[in-house]
């Protein structure tokens, strides 16, 4: 659905993209990660033909955005970051109007189910100017879904949503990708969103793709130790620790431990072993998710710029 190979793009004499690679297949939910200013939004605009690329190859739904921008845009639902609305319109009137740009002729009644899907079913007749930020975010998702796209591009879709709203949008995206065998390109800073939704990721930094591939494969290749904080009922016996775990420090009832990456049976086996050795564990907290560690490693200053593609 999307294939980008070694994309370079210059804006006003400054090279913004210096080698972007991105591959998204039908059914994929692809997490595009990167720090602010890494080039994520510019990559999206290049995909839609809004930025003429200098060199490299882009194909979106089998077409070149430089030559078939309108055809691509008619099949792609886009939720840009911080995008606004005509606030004097009601949500239903706005969606109906926006749909006409895609050649859709739905009535306001036809659009009600879509608003219900994003949790705005009872708010459709209110002017958008009276909406909260979270409601506008939901309406943005509805706007992206409205033209029945085969590819969805979402830039920070859960910004400003409460946990329930985030979960609802997650479920909606999973349903969308599964039912229509469509592709979803998700740009986000929220690694939890990526952890929960995405099967593929790409990490870009300073205009280059640093890493791309299947999330599971990349995490498995990472081979780094994990750190946890354990809340214990009482002081444990630290002299006799099982293999694969080492003690880092403790603050009151919380004990920081590090676990080797390849523990047979995974961390849960280790927690059971600790329990048998008298560690009365009340709570376990991961200090950083595997994805977070991967992201921080890849985008750290001084990290090798060699791409570790695992396509």
């Amino acid at each position: 659905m999307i294939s980008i190979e070694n994309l370079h793009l210059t804006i006003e004499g400054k090279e913004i993209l210096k080698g972007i690679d991105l591959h998204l297949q039908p059914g994929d939910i692809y997490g595009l990660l990167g720090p602010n200013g890494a080039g994520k939004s510019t990559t999206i605009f290049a995909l839609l033909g809004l930025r003429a690329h200098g060199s490299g190859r882009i194909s979106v739904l089998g077409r070149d955005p430089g030559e078939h921008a309108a055809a691509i845009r008619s099949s792609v639902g886009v939720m840009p970051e911080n995008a606004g609305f005509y606030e004097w319109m009601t949500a239903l009137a706005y969606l109906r109007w926006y749909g006409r740009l895609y050649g859709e002729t739905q009535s306001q009644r036809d659009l009600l189910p879509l608003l219900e899907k994003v949790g705005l079913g009872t708010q459709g007749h209110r002017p958008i100017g009276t909406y909260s930020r979270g409601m506008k975010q939901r309406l943005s998702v509805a706007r992206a879904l409205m033209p029945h796209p085969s590819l969805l591009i979402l830039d920070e879709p859960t910004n400003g949503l409460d946990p329930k709203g985030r979960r609802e949008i997650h479920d909606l995206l999973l349903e969308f990708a599964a039912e229509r065998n469509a592709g979803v390109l998700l740009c986000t800073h929220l690694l939890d969103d990526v952890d929960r939704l995405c099967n593929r990721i790409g990490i870009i930094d300073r205009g280059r793709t640093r890493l791309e591939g299947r999330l599971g494969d990349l995490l498995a290749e990472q081979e780094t130790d994990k750190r946890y904080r354990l809340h214990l009922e009482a002081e444990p016996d630290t002299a006799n620790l099982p293999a694969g775990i080492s003690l880092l420090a403790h603050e009151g009832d919380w004990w920081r431990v590090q676990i080797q990456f390849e523990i047979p049976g995974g961390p849960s086996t280790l927690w059971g072993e600790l329990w048998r050795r008298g560690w009365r564990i009340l709570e376990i907290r991961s200090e950083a998710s595997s994805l977070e560690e991967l992201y921080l490693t890849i985008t750290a200053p001084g990290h090798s710029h060699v791409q570790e593609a695992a396509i």
Partner: protein
Amino acid sequence: MKTHWTIAYKESAQMLRSQRGLLWVLAFSGLLSAFSLLLVSNTELSLLDNAQVVYMMSGTVLASGALLAAILGSDAYAGEKERGTLVPLLCAPVSVNALLTGKALGMLTAWGVMFAVATPYLWAVGASGQNLGAALFYLALFGTPVVLGFGYLAMAVSARTGSVLASLLSTVTLLMLAASPLLIGPGLRGTAIGRALDAVNPFAGALNTLDSVIIDSEPFSAQFARLLLVVVWLGLCLLAARRSAAHPNFQ
């Protein structure tokens, strides 16, 4: 519905339903009321003849239309960008031409409303004269390309700079320069510089035509050169707008 009509519908509805649009109509009506009162008083005192009054009123309507076009054109891209509504428009399958045409149709609606508001005022000050019909016809024929031209020019600057303020300042400054024949008086307009400015100035071209048909009762055939001037002006502004809108400043 073609996408340019969809854009035009939004532009017109936004103008006609908003407080901004209502305030503009009220301000324009107030201006015309005050001007009419002043001119009618002068006519009754025989200080101005009827044709002169119609000409001055027509010029005022034309200048107000061009100013409105400059404001709407400046808002067309940069205003949408500042409100965050430009990117969703660009992400939709809307061509550069459709977007420009839709915006221009919105401006035409606003110009149409202004024309409709101005008509009774022109009738009030010019009903007793013989050239009211000609004034209305030539105001529409020459005023529309001049107003649209300023609108396209403002859109060109607006799309290029992405700033309402920059676009408004540059377009209004140009409009003031173009309208300077109204200010500099017939003596200076008779000089070589004044004549050269008149020859390339679409605003002066439209005013000179209004002068020619309303005051001097000259025929349509005498207006071809000026008509060509305003049409060329419109074409150049359209080209500039298309060029800028093909690569708008949206990020």
